[in-house]
């Protein structure tokens, strides 16, 4: 008995790995559809925004061909759409409709481990899918650069934060259709003022300040840094993303504990 008391600590890798193995088992049943849309979407966006706009309105931004500007920016859209939304809907469905968490928490897994595993899984997935727009853009003429190898890390860190945000929202809303408010108030504005499609320094001063607080904007700048050359401030940007992930991790655990433990 004493042995099991010392063995079962907080944040045990076995518990986190077990929860992630459940996600992997489920993912094997639907990965084709998710991967298909993750690859097709950036191609469609690049054709529509990149080639369409660059042929008619915008040739380049800050010396970067517009198709490459959009392609690198789209890493951020891929990350938010493969982290915040799956975290919100997935968590809500597993908790309210499938009673999955009730089963997992009956095993030696606590809420902290459950939330951590969900966030890590979503982060890992988003790190992979976040790289797809970059690979597609290389196909559209972007020169590969060593700094691009850091893109999965940037995508993973940002996705952790948005996964935590999604989990916290899922633990907060009463009904699934309330995610419409979350999407309209947070996800879409963050996505639009991330600098993925146009430079934010053209925006009003107030919006620029808000954009600097936007993790997606920091991700866009880091990905472009990897492609076109880093700056010293990028270290600060990455530290900001780490801070965002850390805060959202604790918020998600707090919200889910209130929701799951009576």
């Amino acid at each position: 008995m004493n042995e099991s008391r010392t063995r079962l600590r907080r944040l045990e890798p076995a518990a986190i790995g077990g929860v992630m193995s459940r996600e992997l088992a489920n993912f094997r049943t639907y990965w084709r559809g998710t991967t298909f849309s993750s690859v097709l979407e950036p191609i469609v966006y690049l054709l529509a925004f990149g080639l369409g706009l660059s042929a008619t309105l915008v040739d380049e931004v800050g010396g970067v061909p517009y198709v490459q500007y959009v392609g690198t920016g789209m890493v951020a859209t891929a990350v938010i759409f493969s982290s915040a939304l799956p975290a919100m809907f997935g968590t809500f469905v597993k908790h309210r409709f499938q009673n999955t968490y009730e089963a997992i928490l009956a095993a030696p897994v606590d809420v902290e481990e459950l939330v951590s595993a969900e966030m890590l899984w979503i982060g890992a997935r988003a790190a992979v899918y976040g790289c797809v727009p970059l690979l597609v853009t290389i196909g559209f003429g972007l020169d590969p650069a060593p700094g691009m190898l850091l893109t999965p890390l940037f995508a993973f860190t940002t996705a952790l934060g948005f996964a935590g945000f999604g989990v916290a929202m899922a633990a907060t809303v009463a009904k699934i259709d309330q995610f419409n408010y979350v999407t309209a108030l947070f996800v879409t504005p963050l996505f639009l003022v991330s600098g993925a499609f146009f430079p934010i320094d053209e925006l009003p001063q107030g919006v620029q300040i808000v954009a600097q607080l936007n993790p997606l904007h920091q991700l866009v700048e880091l990905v472009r840094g990897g492609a076109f050359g880093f700056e010293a401030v990028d270290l600060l940007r990455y530290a900001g993303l780490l801070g965002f992930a850390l805060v959202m991790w604790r918020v998600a655990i707090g919200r889910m504990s209130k929701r799951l433990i009576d």
Partner: protein
Amino acid sequence: MAAIELRGVVKRFGPITAVDGLDLEVPEGICLGLLGPNGAGKSTTMRLLTGQALPDAGELRALGHELPADSKAARAEMGVVPQLDNLDVDVTVEDNLAVFARLYRVPDVGAAVDRALDLARLQARRRDAVDELSGGMRRRLLLARGLVHEPKLVLLDEPTVGLDPQIRTQLWTLIDDLRTRGTTILMSTHYIEEAERLADEVAVMTAGRIISRGRPAQLIAEHAGRETAEVYAPPERLAEARAIAEADGLRVRPAGPAIAIVGSERAGNGAVPEDAVRRAASLEDVFVLLTGEEAE
């Protein structure tokens, strides 16, 4: 050492007291049936034991671990079969089991999955997705999932609720096997027949408390006597028969279209109608008398 010890446990949800000073001790190696109507506090008691509900007062221990402080260690040695089917329906049978073998830190996941498949008699369907299984197979899988780590204590929360009689019988056989092997079982149910069939002891729970406990035969002898007389008649005659029996000091309960006069062996002359159907007293008589609820 008792497998489960609860002393003065209270759990409130706002103005509602779901568990109200509950004292419960489950010795190792027995199957205790927690029998009570819906809302009696059975499922809340189960959630308290798995650390998914925190008590407002009282002391809880499971397998020697204090709850909720040491709940994780207790859960490692405990298996839980929930009331609601929460299997991953798109995932194969064996993957459903493997995930839980990992969650329970089973060293040899493959062997544990094989053992659980044998127990649930699902070897032939191991690579099928859960949504291809029949309702009975899914319930067997749910039971096997809760046993994949060979727990010392199993919590069965309404294990056969909503199932047809054939599937219920299949599950009872599996639970019987488990009991025979000496696993301690706490089973909540509101089915009288299930409690009678499976439980070594029955604790009748209502309004968050245990109001009576013992072996089924003891409870029947204590609360219902030896014999019950059922009277089938038009409503006005039933009312008259009830009044006469109650005047004779007997207890009467509704029994579908009839009334049941409990302890009819003690009836004086004329207290029970001549045409009443006499039968042995049952746990159902005890349940209805104690809880005031219709039995299922």
